[in-house]
Structure formats: C-alpha cells, structure tokens
C-alpha cells in the first residue's frame, strides 16, 4: 500500500524543487534594516516569468493583515508609477534603493511596523508578468545615544529647544574633562543674513550661555531659537549652528552641529 504513494510524493517533491529553482532570489543591503535606514533591495528574476522583461517595477505595501497600506507611488496595476522603476544591474538583476522606508511609504516607522511586502512586475502587470508576494522583516527603529542631542529632533524657530551634551559618550579627552560648558551659536536666515547673538570672545562672560549640569555627566541648555538669535518679525531661520565649547577657551570645543528648523503651520 505504502509503495503506491512513493511516485506521488516524489512527483510533488520534484515539482516543489522546480518551483523553488524558478523563484526569484532576493537580497537586501544592509541585511537588517529599520524603517529609518537606507536600504537597497536586489532581485534576480532569472528563470521566472519576468526573465528578460524590461523595465521592472516594484509594487510594495506595508504588511498589516487585512489593512495593508500600499506604497503611494505604486501607480496603477496596468501602469506602474515611474517612481517605482528598478535599476538594471545586469541581465535579470534589478535593484531599487530607498533613502528610508519611512520616506518611501510616507508613514512613520511606528506605522510601518515589522514587515513590508512587495512583488516585482512589468509596467503592465495584467498579463501575469509578476513575481509572487514577498515579505521582508523590518527591524525596530534604533535610538543611538550620542554626545550631542537636540530635543525635540524637529523644531520650529519659536519652539522650546533643549541641547544635551553627554560627557560619558565624548571620547575627546580635551572636552570630556571640562567642568563648565558653554554654547556658541549662529543662525543663517533665509535672507542669507547670519545672526551671531554673542561673539566667541564674549561667550565666557555670559552665564546664560552655560550648560546646566544635570548630573551623571549630562549637561543641557534650553532656548527658544527666535528669541536666542534675536530674529525679527517676518524673518525665518534657514539653519542653526551649535558649538559646545569650554566656557573659558573657545579653542576647546566639539565639532559644529547644524540643525535645520521646521516651519510650523500657521
């Protein structure tokens, strides 16, 4: 009795093997990535229905069960959006790079979650010129503690902004051994005018530019950029440059950090 099933099983296994050989291969660079990181997806369609088809497009979505969110640049199934066209590396090898999945999907990392789905297709996918659905795991966003941190990460010129300096993470022995830290800052306006509220040589005389010691090696300074830089009504800051330095010696300082304020909705 059992022998009767052997040919059937063998055929099924062979069929599965052939299907796997025919399936496209997929790789990502980097191997693991979060929704906020740059990622490149590379696909080899040799031996699939897309073998020799050009150009190829990605059709992508966020895997959320029944409430999947399609990428806003998918276009129509019969006419893919050019934003999703892939780059040909060599025959049958195609790739596409996303600055970040958050940008590509126009969703936050929290919404993107842990899995995305996609398939590769011809511009017109109606003739079955497509791969099977594929999924990729997305790593949780990473918070990397840093020597210099601005809170909140995005701010407008009239927001309350706190600059943090974490001495524990500073490997520069000339700055991590100081006891008093001060801020030197400039702002570039949209009119190309540069504002320097306090000159480098004057910083040492200003107690309001001193960082507050929060304990455990953490220092902070809070400001409202528009007030701090003396921005006049109607002026807009294009960028800010912050330098954390020794109170007494401008020559002992961290590298300048540039931040671009947002414009709030009026």
């Amino acid at each position, binding site marked *: 009795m059992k022998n009767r099933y052997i040919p059937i099983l063998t055929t099924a296994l062979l069929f599965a093997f052939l299907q796997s050989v025919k399936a496209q291969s997929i790789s990502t660079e980097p191997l693991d990535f979060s*929704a*906020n990181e740059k990622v490149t997806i590379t696909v080899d369609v040799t031996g699939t229905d897309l073998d020799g088809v050009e150009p190829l497009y990605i059709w992508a979505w966020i895997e959320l069960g029944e409430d999947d969110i399609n990428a806003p640049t998918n276009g129509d199934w019969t006419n893919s959006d050019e934003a999703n066209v892939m780059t040909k590396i060599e025959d049958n090898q195609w790739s596409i790079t996303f600055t970040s999945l958050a940008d590509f999907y126009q969703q*936050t*990392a*929290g*919404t993107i979650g842990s899995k995305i789905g996609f398939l590769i297709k011809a511009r017109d996918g109606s003739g079955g010129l497509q791969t099977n659905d594929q999924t990729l795991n997305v790593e*949780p*966003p990473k*918070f990397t503690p840093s020597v210099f*941190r601005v*809170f*909140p*990460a*995005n*701010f*407008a010129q*009239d*927001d*309350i902004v*706190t600059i943090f300096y974490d001495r524990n993470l500073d490997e520069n022995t000339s700055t991590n051994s100081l006891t008093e830290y001060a801020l030197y800052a400039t702002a570039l306006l949209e009119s190309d005018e540069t504002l320097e509220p306090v000159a480098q040589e004057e910083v040492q005389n200003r107690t309001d530019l001193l960082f507050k010691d929060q304990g455990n090696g953490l220092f902070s300074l*809070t400001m*409202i950029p528009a*007030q701090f830089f003396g921005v006049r009504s109607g002026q807009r800051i294009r960028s800010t440059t912050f330098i954390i330095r020794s109170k007494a010696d401008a020559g002992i300082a961290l590298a300048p950090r540039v931040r671009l304020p*947002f*414009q*709030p*909705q*009026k």
Partner: protein
Amino acid sequence: MTGLLLKTQNNMKIKDNHWRWSVGLFSIFIGLVLTSCSPDTVEDLRSEPLTAKPEVLQGTWKLSKVMQIDQVAVDNAFPEAVQSLDITDLFDFGSFELRFDIDDSATPSTFSTSRSENLPVFIVNSGQWSVDNQIFTTKIDLADPSAITGTQLVVRSITSDRLEVRVLRVEEGSEPPTVFSRYDYTFVKL
C-alpha cells in the same frame, strides 16, 4: 416498591440540596452587586459624562505643568526617556492663565489669557472659543481675530478642577499634516 420509595426520597434530597446551593449562590451574587454599587460609583457614572463641558470650563485656569513631546521619538518608539521632557520649571509657566466665559445659555463666548512677556505657550491671546461637542468635548477651538489662525486644544481630560490639553505642532505645507512635536498643558482651576 420500597426501592422506588427510596429512589424518590434520594431524588428529593438531591433536589433539596440543589435548591439550597442555588439560594446560597444567588445571595452571594446579590451581595456582591450591592457592595460594588456604592452610592459614589453610581453618582460618578451618572454625572461625569453628562455634564455640559462649557459650564465646567468656565472660569480661570492656571497653567501648572508643561510637557514637551518629541513626535519623532514617539513615532520611532524610542526609549521613553527621550520621548518627552518636563519643561515646567524652565520658564515662568505659572504666570499663564486662561479664562473661559460662557453666555446666558451656557454657550462658549469669549476667552482671554494673561502671561509674562515672551512666555512660550502656544495658545492665542484672546477671542472667541467653541467646543466640538458640549458634553463629549474632544476639541476646544480658540479664535483670535489678531492672529493668523487660532489654536486648537486637543482635550485629554476635563474635570471640575483640572484641565489637560494638547497642542500639536504641524509642519507647514505637509500633506498629510505632519506633527513634529507637541505640548501637553495641565491647568488647575482658580
């Protein structure tokens, strides 16, 4: 015959026991229900959701706590320590007062604020106020004729002596609107 009699008696005993158990369990159930429905709880359930919020909001509120929230950190599920910052003590927020007035029909009318100079509270100065729902209020709109636009306070909690609202900071021109940070304001009634 004797056997039948014995069987009937046993059945009666069993039924009698069932009856006693049922009465006992029912008594315990009634006791639990009566204990859980103390007068305070019943009062809370009856009064809280049905109070017209403009009447609760009328009067002067003093700012007592300000939390700043980094929406990027929240969206990315970063550690809680970097998601929010208590900035209450960094500015003279205690000087900020918000007054709501209502008219004779208990409808929102005017509002006004007072604050120390340059205090960074994202609430317009004075004008007309309105709510999205008189009872189940989720938004309070403040319209100031002298400002380009008003302020929308997203209600987190309203009680007779405490008001918690949220102001969202939205990036200009973003579509859909992108919230980049927010401020959570807690007021106490004066």
